[in-house]
């Protein structure tokens, strides 16, 4: 028999209350885990898409905060950029979220410059790539193919135009796996944006250094008013959806933290009120006030840790479930890591300590004789 076992036993002998408290904490932690992993995953997925393409810098309109930056005329900007030192390739990209089937939620439609380096990181699993700049075909990500029930040779209607599916590809980024891909010329035609792109991707040559990247950023700032050159990470962190999802996850952490601590607080306060006489006995038997505090805080921490473990399992389950529902497929890629789980467990322990401290202090302050007389 030690303090931990005694604390565990105290919780065990009130199964209903313990169960309810653990459930309440678990729900809060599950929300934190699911939302945070999705917010991070969303950011990571976009960054992965940009990194996988081998893009060193992205040039876009300064005020763009939407999922994809607003379109602009590429030609002049592209020429200016191509003339900068160590710039190997400048390629445009056009993207829109479009409904291509009434039975499926909107998907990303990307237009990439035909024959550019952007295509190189994709793995063709069926069919072929577009054969020319103007060929009205699409290749579709494996996940999008599954969601839209399309295979090579089928047809899809995009903004009133019919395209043949030339092939199916796979990408390491879930955003691309859930997308439809066509040449930039076709994307410009279909979205009625001739000559326009959302972003320009810059690939630097092998000799380029960090200093060269910084220099290009500076030159863009000076020579192309209204435009900004940023790394993929910077672009993603500016993205409104990423920012909103991160803000939501932070708000959830705060709310779940407060609710969790209050639940533990309430439970422990009720528990010590019920156990007033028992605490009196323990004090009479020579327990020091510090030991009483340790007991109550231990019980609170055990509750919150149990809630944390159950919450993590639930949160992972929720994120997994959301990844697989039709509406969200291909758009989120929740990421989990051991440091994240440790942080969540840390949060749980903190909830226990915060919620348990006052009840513990109150219990330790009780006068043994009064506690023994308590009915």
């Amino acid at each position, binding site marked *: *028999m*030690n*303090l931990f076992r*005694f604390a565990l*036993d105290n919780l*065990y*002998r009130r199964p209903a209350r313990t169960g309810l408290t653990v459930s309440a904490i678990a729900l809060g932690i599950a929300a934190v885990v699911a939302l945070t992993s999705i917010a991070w995953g969303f950011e990571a997925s976009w960054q992965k898409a940009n990194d996988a393409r081998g893009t060193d810098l992205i040039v876009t309109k300064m005020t763009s905060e939407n999922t994809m930056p607003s379109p602009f005329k590429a030609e002049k900007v592209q020429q200016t950029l191509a003339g900068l030192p160590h710039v190997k390739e400048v390629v445009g990209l056009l993207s829109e979220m479009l409904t291509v089937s009434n039975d499926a939620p909107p998907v990303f439609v990307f237009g990439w410059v035909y024959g550019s380096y952007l295509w190189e990181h994709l793995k063709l699993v069926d069919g072929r790539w577009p054969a020319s700049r103007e060929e009205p075909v699409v290749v579709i990500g494996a996940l999008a193919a599954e969601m839209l029930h399309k295979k090579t040779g089928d047809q899809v209607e995009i903004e009133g135009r019919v395209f043949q599916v030339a092939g199916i590809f796979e990408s390491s980024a879930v955003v691309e796996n859930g997308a439809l891909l066509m040449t930039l010329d076709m994307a410009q035609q279909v979205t009625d944006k001739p000559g326009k792109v959302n972003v320009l991707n810059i690939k630097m040559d092998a000799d380029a250094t960090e200093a060269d990247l910084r220099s290009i950023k500076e030159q863009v700032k000076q020579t192309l008013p209204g435009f900004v050159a940023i790394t993929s990470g910077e672009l993603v962190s500016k993205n409104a959806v990423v920012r909103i999802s991160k803000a939501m996850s932070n708000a959830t952490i705060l709310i779940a933290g407060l609710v969790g601590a209050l639940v533990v607080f309430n439970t422990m306060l009720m528990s010590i009120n019920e156990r007033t*006489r*028992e605490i009196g*006995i*323990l*004090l*009479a*038997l*020579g*327990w*020091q*006030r*510090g*030991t009483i505090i*340790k007991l109550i805080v231990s019980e609170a921490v055990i509750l919150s840790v149990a809630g944390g473990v159950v919450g993590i399992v639930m949160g992972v389950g929720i994120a997994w479930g959301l990844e697989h529902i039709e509406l969200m497929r291909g758009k989120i890629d929740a990421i989990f890591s051991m440091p994240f789980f440790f942080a969540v467990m840390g949060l749980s322990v903190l909830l226990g300590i915060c919620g348990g401290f006052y009840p513990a202090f109150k219990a330790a302050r009780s*006068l*043994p*004789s009064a506690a*023994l007389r308590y009915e």
Partner: protein
Amino acid sequence: MSALSLSTPILRIKALNLHFDEGRIKALNGVDLDVREGEFVSIAGPSGSGKSSLLNVIGTLDAPTSGELVFRDQPYSKIGDASLFRRENIGFIFQAFYLIPTLSALDNVIVPTIGCDGTADEYKAHAEALLTQLGLRDRLHHFPGKLSGGERQRVAIARSLINRPRMILADEPTGSLDSANAAQVLDILTGIVKEQGLTLIMVTHDATVSARSDRIIRMRDGKIEQGASA
């Protein structure tokens, strides 16, 4: 003159007052009492006479309003940590046993050692030895609900002894037992107290119990009527 009366006092009480409700209730009203090392003192008196209050003050469960208490030359007023003082010097036995229902007899005995410096094995061995001495060898892992009243009180006696106190304070320990069980518990308790040279202060209504003590103190209205000194 007995050997006991020659031994040094373990507890000296002078002009002890315990008032509640801004002095309107005088639970203890000028109590003077000396208790010698190894003495068995019983406290008798009608309900509300201040017996349990006196026990609580001696056991540091209540702080006196005024007066002087000295335990083995240490004034109570100089005790820094009352819990530590209780743990090291005093064992409590209550009429209602106050065992923790979800812990086995053995674990109930070990409870007071939680937070102490010794090893778990050491305390477990000591608790087993005490329960064996109290005739509960085959009841170690029984829960209080499965024990008779007498057995429960024996577990409580073992619990009061686990930290090797110098003084046992018992508040009507046989009050909830039938006469046969009461006699058995009393035999065991007095036997151990005598064997280990402990001081026992027991509150009791039962004349047959108090008859076995070295000294009977009679209280009324918060005062000692009889038996204040050895």
